[in-house]
Each structure stands twice: as C-alpha cells, then as structure tokens.
C-alpha cells in the first residue's frame, strides 16, 4: 500500500470510530412517559429534553437545514445559507480592508529596521487583544453594529499580515539586494522585482493566518451583537438549548473555515517563487 492509501484508510477508520463512539455516548433526550400526571406533563416529560445529540441526529438535522438553506421567515429566522453569506461578507470586508492597509505599511516597516524596532512593542501589545474586548469600544465609537463587527475583524486580522510582511521584506537575502545595486536598479524596481517576489511566501503565510483569525472573530462578534450571521445562529439555538443545531453550525463553521483557508493557500501557489 502506498502512503496515501494508508492515510486515507486511517482517516476513514478514525471517522467511523468517532461516529460509533459518538452514537454510543450520547442520548436522544427522549423521555416518553405514558400516563403522565399533570405535573410530569408540565415538566415536559412527554417531550425531548435538551441533550447532546448523536451523529445520526445531527446528520438528520443537517439534511433538513441544508435542503432549504435560504429560507427567510423574518428578521430573526433565516436559513443557514443566508446566515453564512452574511458572515462571509463581513469577514471579506474586514479582511480586505486590512490587506489594503497592512501590505503597504508592512512593506515600509520591513524596509527600515528602525521603524521595525520602533513599532514592534505596539504591535505586540495590540496583537493579542480579543475581539470581544474591542467590541464595546467599537460599538460606542462607530455607532453601527455591522460596521463594528467589520472593524473588529479588521483590527484582529491586521497584525499577522503586518508582522509577516515586514519580516518577509526584512529577511530578503543581502546578496539579492547587492546584485540589484550592482546592476544599478532603481529602488522602485528593486522593491517590485527583487524584494516582493522574495518576500511573497512569508506574506502569504501572514495572509493565511489572518484569514483564520477573521473567521474565528466573526463568530464571536456576531454572538455578541446578534441580528444576522452564523454567530447569531449559534447563539439563537443555544438560547433554546437546541444542541443539534449548535453542533451542525459548528461543523458548517469548520467547513467554511477550511474553504477560506484553501482559497488563500491555492492562490499562493500562483505567486510562489522558488530559489
């Protein structure tokens, strides 16, 4: 067996084991009692209790949600497809904004070691701040909940891009730059023809990390602000202790995250530069 085949086999085995164990350790929440007293009836003994769903139940739920992903029953009840589109749109807006700002600034910082050292402490302080900590400030200052979530994505995703761009630019081999000098290339030409291609792999790593962070942030932000989006969907189902929906949306969040990540990593292949 080739290595690939082994890996696929192992993957499938893990999945099957996970399904079986999942099905065994979860309950259905059924408490169907016949001949209930009035008290038992009011306690909901005849109806399912909130419970952790097994894989089969989640699968059934996923089927019913995905068969009609774009329904719209008013402002507080929309299909999973619509919610995901809202979230993706917000992520894209915040992410693109930070790309536009982080790449040029990162480039400049990387070209000047003084700038790099001077800004380093600020970046290190701002980088680890949680999106939820930014939210109250953003809501108060921006006075618009959608723009606030876009801002929070922007502020959380900008740092890895900035650092990686600067780092990539800084670590371009001195030999390359010396050759450029020998050939009397203009500084603009050096930047675009020597530094940029050499720094691209590092820059793309930053872009990938940032995309991952943006997708993490949007769920938290929407849970807090509500209204629309996949984060709101999770929150709304949590209120009702409907864990099948919560597990289903967790899976959907994972799939979309994977999709967004592969989008960046695939496009990086077109720009990759080999020594």
């Amino acid at each position, binding site marked *: 067996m080739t290595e690939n085949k082994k890996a696929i086999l192992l993957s499938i085995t893990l999945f099957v084991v996970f399904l079986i164990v999942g099905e065994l350790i979860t309950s259905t929440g059924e408490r169907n009692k016949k001949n209930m007293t009035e008290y038992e009836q*009011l306690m909901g003994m005849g109806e399912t209790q909130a419970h952790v769903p097994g894989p089969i139940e989640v699968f059934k739920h996923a089927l019913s949600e995905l068969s009609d992903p774009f329904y719209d*029953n008013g402002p507080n009840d929309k299909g999973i497809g619509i919610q995901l589109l809202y979230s993706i749109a917000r992520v894209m807006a915040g992410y693109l904004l930070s790309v536009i700002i982080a790449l040029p600034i990162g480039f400049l910082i990387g070209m000047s070691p003084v700038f790099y050292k001077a800004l380093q402490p600020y970046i290190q302080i701002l980088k680890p701040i949680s999106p939820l900590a930014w939210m109250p400030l953003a809501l108060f200052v921006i006075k618009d909940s959608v723009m606030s979530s876009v801002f929070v994505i922007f502020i959380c995703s900008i740092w890895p891009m900035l650092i990686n761009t600067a780092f990539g630019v800084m670590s371009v081999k001195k030999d390359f730059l010396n050759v450029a000098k020998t050939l009397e290339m203009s500084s603009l030409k050096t930047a675009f023809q020597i530094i940029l291609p050499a720094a691209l792999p590092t820059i793309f790593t930053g872009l990938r990390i940032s995309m991952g962070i943006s997708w993490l942030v949007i769920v938290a932000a929407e849970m807090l602000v509500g209204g629309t989006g996949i984060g709101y969907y999770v*929150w709304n189902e949590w209120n009702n202790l409907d864990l099948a929906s919560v597990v289903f949306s967790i899976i959907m969040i994972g799939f979309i995250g994977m999709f967004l990540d592969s989008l960046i990593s695939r496009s990086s292949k077109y720009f990759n530069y080999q020594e």
Partner: protein
Amino acid sequence: MPVNSLDDPFSEKSDLSHGAGCSCKSCHSADVEMVQNLPHTEEEMVNRFVETSVVKSIFGGNDVKRRQFIRTVGAGVFRAALLSVVPLGALQSCINDTKKKVESGGSSKLGASKLEKIKLNIGFVPITCATPIIMSKPMGFYEKYGLDVDVIKTAGWAVARDKSLNKEYDASHMLTPMPLAMTMGAGSSSVPYVMPAVENINGQAICLHNKHKDKRDPKMWKGFKFGVPFEYSMHNFLLRYYVAEHGLDPDKDIQIRVVPPPEMVANLRAGNLDGYLSPDPFNQRAVYENVGFLHMLTKDIWEGHPCCAFACSQEFVTNNPNTYSALFSAIIDATHFSSQQENRAQIAEAIAPKNYLNQPASVIAQVLTGKYADGLGNVLNEPNRIGFDPFPWHSMGVWILTQMKRWGYVKEDIDYKKIAEQVYLAAECGAKMKEMGYDAPSTTYKKHTIMGKEFDPNFPEEYVNSFDIRVK
C-alpha cells in the same frame, strides 16, 4: 363589475383602456380564468389602482404608447426604473390606511397618511416580558395602526441600549430602570430617553439550582453566585432588596453577576450560578430542563412591581410625533390584549417560534397562564404570575431611583420626582389609555408595599436612609 381596466399596468399584453360601461367582449365575459391577473381583494384593487394611475400618467393616458414602450424595455426594467423614482409602496399603504381610518370612523387628525416614518425597527430581548412588543408583529397590532415594524432579537441589554443609542432601533424593549439611568448618564452616555409605557408587571422569579432544594431560607445563601440580567434592572434591585431584608449584604455576602437572560439556563446547568432572579421563560425553562426549581415568584416580593418597558429617545418623539403616537397606540392596545387571561394561550402559540422567543410553547404557556410546575413536585395555579399594565407610575420611578441611590449606582443628590416625571410619561399614557377607551388612574403617585414595608414616594431620601444595609 368590470375591472379589466385594473389589469397589470406593467404588462405589454394588458389593455388598460376599458372604461365604465365598456362594451368589449372581455368586459362582459364571465370567464374568470382569462383575467387572473386582476386584483381580487379590496386592498389589492387600491394598490393596482395607484400603480395604474401612475403608469398611465407617464404616458399621458396613451395605452398604445405604453405597450410599445414596455415591449422595448421589458416589464421588469420598467417596473424597477419606476420604483426607483416613485415610492409606490408608500403611496399604496398611505391610501389603504387612510381608507381604513375613514371606514373605521377614526379621527383624521391621526390619519396614517401623515405618519413621518412607516418602517420601524424595534429591538427586543427574547423574554416573556416583551410579549406585547413581540406579539404585535405576528398578531397584526402594528399593521392595524399603519406601521410596518420589524422586531429584532437582541442578545442582551447592553447591546439593546447601544443599538438604541446608535439609532439602529427606533424604539426598544427595555428594563424600567434603564431609561432613568440613560437619562442621567449612569453607565452610558447621557441621552434623554422617555418611557411612555410599562410592558409587564410581576412575571419574574427566583430560581435556584436543584442541589439547593434544602436551602430555602435566604440566610443560608452566603457565598451564592446569583445572575441578574442587567445592573439597571428590577431584577437586580428586587434581589438586593430581598436578600437585604433577610440580613445579607448583597455586595459582600453574595455575588451578583450580570448574565444575559438567554444564557441563564446554560450557566445554571454548568454550575456557574447557584441561582438567578431572571425574566421568564428562563425560570420555567430551568424547571423544564430539570436543572432548577422556582424558589419564589417576584410577585410575592412586591405585588404589581413593574419590570420591562417600552422606551424610545426623546428625539424620536420630537421628530416623528404621528408615528410615535401610532406606535404608542399599538403598544397600549397590545398590552391591554395581553392582560386578558383568555388571550394568553393564543399569545403563547404566536410568540414561541424561532423568529421570536424560540422556546417550547408549553414553557411559555406555563408562564403566561400561571398554571405551572415549580420543580419541587407541585402544580401551582397563579393567574397573576405575570400581568400586563402599561401605566408608568411616577412613584415606581421614584422607588427605582431610591434603590439606585441605596446601592450606590448614583452618588450625587438627585431630584427623584423631577427625573421620574421627565422619563416616565404617566400623564401621556393615561390620556392615551382613556382615548382608547380603557380605564386609567387619575393620579400618578401612590404608596407601594414591598415585603410588608410601605414606600411613600413623597419621602424618598428618608426611605433610602431607613435601610440598615446599604452603600454608605
């Protein structure tokens, strides 16, 4: 009646030239299949009439030109282009509303045609206190007063406050102390808010975790972690009052945490809270999930205490007097409707779905009808578990302010009555209730009794100082 002239004006195939007494074949044919594009209900007819007259006027009444034009550009493009310059929807609803007003004999002074704003966003937190605000949407109370309202679910009170301050919401479901706090700038920037109506009275409960079934005496609650929905809430003030009357200092002996209502049950289950004084349906939901039991209803702390309210900014009232008035009427009407015990089961059905409270209908019904399981093995019948009464007593506002003073939320000396009168529009609410034919009290101050102790709104400062346990 020949209504062929009301055929679709956006279709190139329709002929709008049939007048009264038209003698053409289609006007006399009884074949309804042929004219399925025609409007059927009265409202549709009015809508179509507005469309038709606008379209006709564009082409100077020349039907041949109209059809030629539509054939060239296409019906969809034409309709879209027209809609971008003429607010057809608004015109149609204006005329329909005015027509209804005239038919129902309503005063033309409040004519819906003068509404400054028809499309409104109203925020709510998914709890039964908001019943009148929520049910007005599915049960058509907003529509009845010519408003097109979206009710928007909000994750918690802080977000509801911020979205209101940001004007994303035109009006919002709030807690009765919130507009007072916002007006004074306590815990937020100071923006004048008004509270035209209270939503519900009573309707809250102290719910404890099942492991505390033997600790029914509050004296045994030292070290407990309690959840309340918001700092500026009746829940916080009632819980503090209740434990203080039993000799516990709420700031030292117990821990009070702010937890958004929808997250209460999950926190109780996780053992993160020992109990909470929270809005329903989350007390009943804890019982239903076998996580907690109802220690007591808040109606037994203060019978008839206010809880949630309908509030909006002073600015909204000033800029949109007619819209505000219509909205106010809708809320009073709905509140009155919910106060009738016989409507409660029907309301529970209407507000249970995902779009609104997203809870099992049985839980909501237990809260609203007052026939409920307490989690200790008893079925209780308490029709006054929750009540709905819009009148915002100034004395209630004064009481809330005394508690804010008592627990140190406001430090400086305040003019209790002045603030209460500025924010709680009791006189206005009374007038509105009378106008709509409901009974309204003639005074705005009265004495309240809370856990056997009388509160006289004329002596607020003395009342604050009469408590031993307070922030000094």
